[in-house]
C-alpha cells in the first residue's frame, strides 16, 4: 500500500471507528440507535403510574412484569442483577421506565424518566 493510500485508509477507519476508539467506547451502535417513538408498554393505554404500581419492590418478579407490561430491553450483569427498560411515548411525552431486578429475579428498584427517549 502506498503512503498516500495508507493515509486515506487510516482516515476512513479512524472516522468510522472514532466512537469505538475514543475513551474506550465499545458500542457505536447505541450512539446511532433510533429514538423510541412507539408506545411505552404493550398496552398503549397503560400509564407510567400504573406501571410503577405494578413493580413492587421485593415482590414482583421478571415474569410478572413481562406479563403485565410486555417485553423490555434488558442488560444482565455478572452477579445476576438485571436492568429492564421500557422506552417510548407516554401521555407525558418520550419516557422510559427502568426496573432493577436482583439475582433472585425480584424487583429491587424502579425509576421513571420523562424527557427525550432518544440518544444524543
Amino acid at each position, binding site marked *: 500500500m502506498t503512503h498516500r493510500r495508507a493515509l486515506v485508509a*487510516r482516515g476512513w*477507519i*479512524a472516522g468510522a*471507528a*472514532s*466512537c*469505538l*476508539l*475514543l*475513551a*474506550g*467506547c*465499545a*458500542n457505536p*451502535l*447505541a*450512539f446511532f*440507535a433510533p429514538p423510541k417513538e412507539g408506545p411505552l408498554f404493550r398496552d398503549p393505554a397503560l400509564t407510567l403510574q400504573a406501571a410503577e404500581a405494578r413493580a413492587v*419492590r421485593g415482590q414482583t418478579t421478571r415474569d410478572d412484569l413481562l406479563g403485565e407490561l410486555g417485553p423490555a*430491553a*434488558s*442488560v444482565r*450483569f*455478572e*452477579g445476576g*442483577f438485571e*436492568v429492564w*427498560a421500557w*422506552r417510548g411515548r407516554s401521555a407525558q411525552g418520550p419516557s*422510559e421506565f*427502568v426496573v*432493577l431486578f436482583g439475582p433472585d429475579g425480584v424487583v*429491587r*428498584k424502579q*425509576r421513571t*424518566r420523562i*424527557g*427525550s*427517549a*432518544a*440518544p*444524543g
Partner: protein
Amino acid sequence: MRSHAIAPCRSTLRRVGWLLLASLWLGAASAQDKVLPGVAVTGSASEPTVEKSYRKMLRGMDLFEREHTLAPQAELRFKLLPRKRDTNMAIAQIEVYSRTVDFTLPVAADGTFALPRHAKAQAEDARVASDRRLRSLTWRVDIRTPGLPANVRRLGDLRLECRVGMESGLVSEGTSLVGAIAKVFDSPDYCRRKEPRYYFFAERPLFNVTLVHGNRRESLPIQRLYAGAIDEPNLARDLPSCDCEVLVERTYELPLGDPGWPDDTRVELEYMDGAE
C-alpha cells in the same frame, strides 16, 4: 646518514615484532573464547507491562493548571482501575523510569496517585509504569471537589477529568493499529461535545445518575449508562477493546459540552445496592 638508514629498519622490526606478539595473543584469546563454558540463562522473558507517557501526563497536568477554574477547590490525581477480572488491584506503587531516572510513587488504597514534576524524567521521555501486564489496567484522572457526599460528583470536576484525561493520553489501546489510530483523536476538545462518549466509572454498580442544579433534576437516559449496553446485545463481543471491559455496570456518560448544565451541577449517583 648511515645510522639514519639503519634506525628505521630496527623500528620497523620492532613494530613487526609487537604486531606478531599481539596477533599471537589475540589468537590465543580467540581460541580461549571458543572453549568458554556455556552460560545457563534462567527465568522467562518478561511480559509487557502497563505504561503511559510521562510527558503526556505532564501535559495533562499543565492543562489542569490552566483550566483549574473548572474545579477550583480540587486537586489532580490519577487513578488505576481494573480492566481484566483477574487483575490484582493491590498495587502499592507506580514506577517512573527513563535512561538515567528511576523512582517509585505510592498508590493509595483507592487506586490513586499524584505525579510529581521531574525535569530530567521529562527530558528523557520517561515512562510511568505499573508491574501489571499490558491491558490489565484502565487509567483515569481523579479530580474531586472536597466536601461532597460520597455519591455526588461535581460536573465541572468531571469536565476537567475528561479534558485532562484526553490530554494525558490515558485512553488508548496501546501499540495496536487500533490504538495508534485512536491517538489521532486524543484531544481535550473532544470533551466539549454536547455528549461525548467519554466513560466515567462510579465506585459501585449504578442504577441511576441524576444531574441536579437548583430546581432542575434530570436523570440520564438509560443508553448513557452501562456503555450503551441496553441497545447493544453483542456488547460482550466488543468488550475486549473497551477500557470499560469489567466496569460496564459502573459506567456512565455525561453531557459535558451542554452549556445548560453549569459546572457546579451535582451529579448524583444511585447504586444498585444503595438504599432508595
